[in-house]
């Protein structure tokens, strides 16, 4: 455990921020629905990383407990999301989100 703490907390914050931004940009800019889901997972995991880092740095176990919650929620959300995506693929034959514009006036 000693070696882990020699890495300053800033590095973890920076890494988490970069991962999160990559996730955000991926959600905004990518057209493939599966990629977007992966980017959402990326964002969630970035947050997980940050929580674990701080939990170790502060010696408080609450952060790690919260990570478990996040993982459970992420899993549930992926299950539902992929199910919906499968139905969309069956109905429209593609996973490109530009196809899903039926609400256009």
């Amino acid at each position: 455990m000693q070696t882990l703490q020699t890495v300053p907390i800033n590095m973890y914050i920076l890494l988490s921020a970069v991962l999160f931004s990559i996730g955000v940009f991926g959600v905004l800019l990518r057209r493939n629905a599966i990629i977007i889901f992966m980017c959402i997972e990326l964002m969630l995991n970035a947050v997980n990383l940050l929580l674990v880092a701080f939990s170790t740095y502060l010696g408080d176990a609450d952060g790690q407990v919260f990570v478990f919650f996040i993982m459970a929620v992420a899993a549930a959300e992926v299950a539902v999301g992929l199910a919906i995506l499968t139905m969309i693929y069956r109905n429209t034959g593609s996973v490109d989100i530009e196809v899903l514009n039926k609400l256009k006036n």
Partner: protein
Amino acid sequence: MTQLVGLIPLLPLIGFLIIGIFGKQLSKGIVGAIACGSILGSFLIALAVFFQVKSSESHSITITLFDWISSGKLHVAFSFLIDPLSALFLLIITGVGFLIHVYSVGYMHEDEGFSRFFAYLNLFVFFMLILVMGSNYLLMFVGWEGVGLCSYLLIGFWFKNTAYNNAAKKAFILNRIGDLGFLLGILLIFITFGSISYAEVFSQAKFLGVDKPVITTITLLLFVGAMGKSAQIPLYTWLPDAMAGPTPVSALIHAATMVTAGIYMIARSNILYTLAPVSLEVVAVVGVITSLFAASIGLFQNDIKKVLAYSTVSQLGLMFLALGVGAYSTGVFHVMTHAFFKALLFLGAGSVIHAMSGEQDIRNMGGLKKHLPVTYMTFLLGTLAISGIFPFAGFFSKDEILAHTFEHNKVLWVLASLASAMTAFYMFRLFYLTFFGNFRGTKEQEHHLHESPKSMTIPLIVLAVLSVVGGFIGVPEIFHAPHLLEGFLAPVFADSEMKTLPTHMNEGTELTLIILALAIAIAMIYFAYDRYVKKENLPADEDEEINPAQKLVYNKYYIDEFYNAVITKPVDWLSDKFYRFMELRFVDAIVNGIGTSVNWGSRTLRLIQTGSIELYLLIMVLGIAVLLFIK
């Protein structure tokens, strides 16, 4: 007893509700029974109340149902005042009302609106009772408006005819014009006295001096209301047109009850009027001029109901004349006798119209004496009563009016006597042309001539009896018998009596006046007999040429046309201008503008819905960012 007083107006109201809601499902017999029964119930209670008032020491009882308005300085209770004046009116309204209800069961039997008719009639009686029983001006006004409403509903009863609807509208509008004056009067009373309940206003008024401008204004404004409701000049033109309604309506509303509301109001406010002699003069002059004017028109009318309508206007004028010369109980006396014989005459006319299969023009009648014996007899009694022949009811009340007027102002007496003379003439003209001579109608009509059923003839008989004996409650002094009515009503007018100088007429003068009036009346009757029976003169047909003076009177002095040109047309023009400018360009623009702007707004907002998921995601992220940076 006091609890039962509340039932008097309640019974007709319940009758109205039951017949109004369930009328179509009930049989005609039941509807008639409920309607007549409720009025009969009210009559019996009114009778008990009358006897109690007569024998009790305290002459007025106030029964409060609940506190109605309590706002700032205004406190109005929903309470009834039972004193000799209201007790008498209660008897008239419920008694004559009951007879007319019974008559209507026969008269309206074939009509498909049978239940609607009785619902309206009951509602009318309810409002009229509220009018006379109210213990403050506001309740009187509620009744006042309510009877105006029922009058509108009943005049336009056969609503499929546009002319009848116009007559109903005319009645309501002219009433409303009067009501404006009435309302202003009430407001002024409240400002001056701080209350609108009779007890408080009159007890304060007692101590005021005569000829205060405020009191004169109040009384004149109240009289404007009476002019509209009781058809005096200039607001009388609705009453002849109101004959468009079924005959029982004309009998009840436009002869016996509603039109007497103005007289009731002035009699009730007698102390205020005594303090304003100027207003009394106005009342007397308007009354006598209306009386003469309407009588002159009645001389040439050919519709049986129109003659009676103008006769009503004329008699109302005489009642106002009586009030105007300070003879309040005389005015009320004439209200009572008039209710009897005018209702009788109208119901008799209805019987004639019923027999003639709907014909109302007397030029097409004649010789009905042998076909309608009961109607003939009762109509004769009614005509004798209205002409003021001794010893019928009309003689006593009319003689009293003339006597008091003679004491007050000889010119008014001459005019009033002239109006009475004309009354005798045109009434007997009507009588002779209808019942004597040869039948002038079609063969069809002659075939159908029949006396009316019992439900119609029995009320006629009862009213005829009342027209014969009703006058004896008010015999003049020269007969050395007590004037029962004046004694009964004395407490109501006591304060006024104290303020004015008592007058006493010389016995000889009074006898001379009576004999003079009788002589003139008998002469008029003979003149009519000579002209219409002996010489068999007939009124001119529609297309015959008549001399210009006669044409003027026959066309009612063109007053309706005058009102049309001077008042209706300018108002129509103004309303058209308002419509074009205010309504179309202004109000419509604003309202439509709101609609258009909502449309525009929604069209613009709709552009946000592009359907592209990328845009939605972008907005979501931006929104979160904004939320995060704004604490």
